[in-house]
């Protein structure tokens, strides 16, 4: 089960996901990120605090979105990933590619 909420926080698109992200639903995350980007947002924060499991399918969506916003001079920053998600990010070497913040507030105000 995956739930995604998108909101606008002073021009920054905040995407909050909760649940489990695997190859059966990673495209939903991708769609949410794409929706925000298509609406003109180039600064994104993805709050992962409520995601208890993410496989490489989820990582692919993150990387695809990051590439897109970087092209336009923006960024996709990650907020408060759980230990499990941080493990997966580290395994893929993405912990140095994404900027990761310990809280949603810090991620949002980093822009």
């Amino acid at each position, binding site marked *: 089960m995956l739930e995604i909420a998108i909101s606008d926080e002073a021009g920054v698109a905040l995407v909050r996901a909760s649940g489990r992200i695997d190859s059966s639903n990673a495209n939903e995350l991708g769609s949410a990120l794409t929706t925000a980007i298509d609406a003109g947002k180039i600064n994104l924060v993805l709050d992962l605090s409520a995601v208890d*499991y993410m496989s490489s399918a989820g990582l692919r969506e993150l990387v695809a979105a990051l590439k897109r916003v*970087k092209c336009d001079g923006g960024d996709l920053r990650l907020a408060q990933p759980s230990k499990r998600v941080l493990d997966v990010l580290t395994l893929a070497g993405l912990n140095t590619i994404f900027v990761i913040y310990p809280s949603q507030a810090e991620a949002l105000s980093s822009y």
Partner: protein
Amino acid sequence: MVVSEKHLRIAARREQIAMAVDFVAHQAQLAGLDDDGIHQCSLAVDEACSNIVEHGYKAGTEQAIELTCREEDAAFSILIADHAPAYNPLNQPEPDPATPLDQRVDGGWGVSFMRRLMDDVAYQHHNGRNILVLTKYLDATRKRIGVKQQDRHLFLVAPMGDLDERFSQRLALALGGEIAAGHKYLIMDLSGVDLVTSGGLKMLVSVWQRAREQKGDIVLAGLNTAVQEVMNLTGFDLVFSIYPTVAEAANLHKFR
């Protein structure tokens, strides 16, 4: 020695992968892997199945993935088999994590994940099937059950740690195996056990009943004060023969 072998067959569809992951996670838990080990096995199986779904079978064909979880003394193995055209995923080159973002090619993570998550990853092609074997070696901390032969007919089991729900499930498996193998006279040395939960009590009763069905017996020894109190409160001290030490249990109890 194979302690347990369980099978699951799923359709090679993305929506079914979670079922395979849950199956493997549960078997890994029963095999005594810690939370990290269980998560690693889950991720590895997720990747393997995703690769088969994405790349293995041609679109539009309804095919299956067969999973086997095998627990042996020193290893927990996951076998993932499919009937797609022969393909060895281990031949893929590993992506370099140091690759800068704009040069990264999507995909190919699955195999590097599996190699990093598991202790061993092997591939065979056999009987028209691709078989991927993912293995986690089980270390000494898992051998907290310690079954020893006390004398010709008597066996000693000395579990280490709290008899919580999870450990009790593993003990039940292990002891069930002992009884089935004919080792029906057992002394459970509980001196290494600080705490017995209701799951632990249920397990003790159930294995005791199994032993009795085979005309065997299980007695308890080395209970600390807290555990003895639990036995007294629950009336289990009327069901089980309880001795202060293993030696007394071995010398004094009439097993047959």
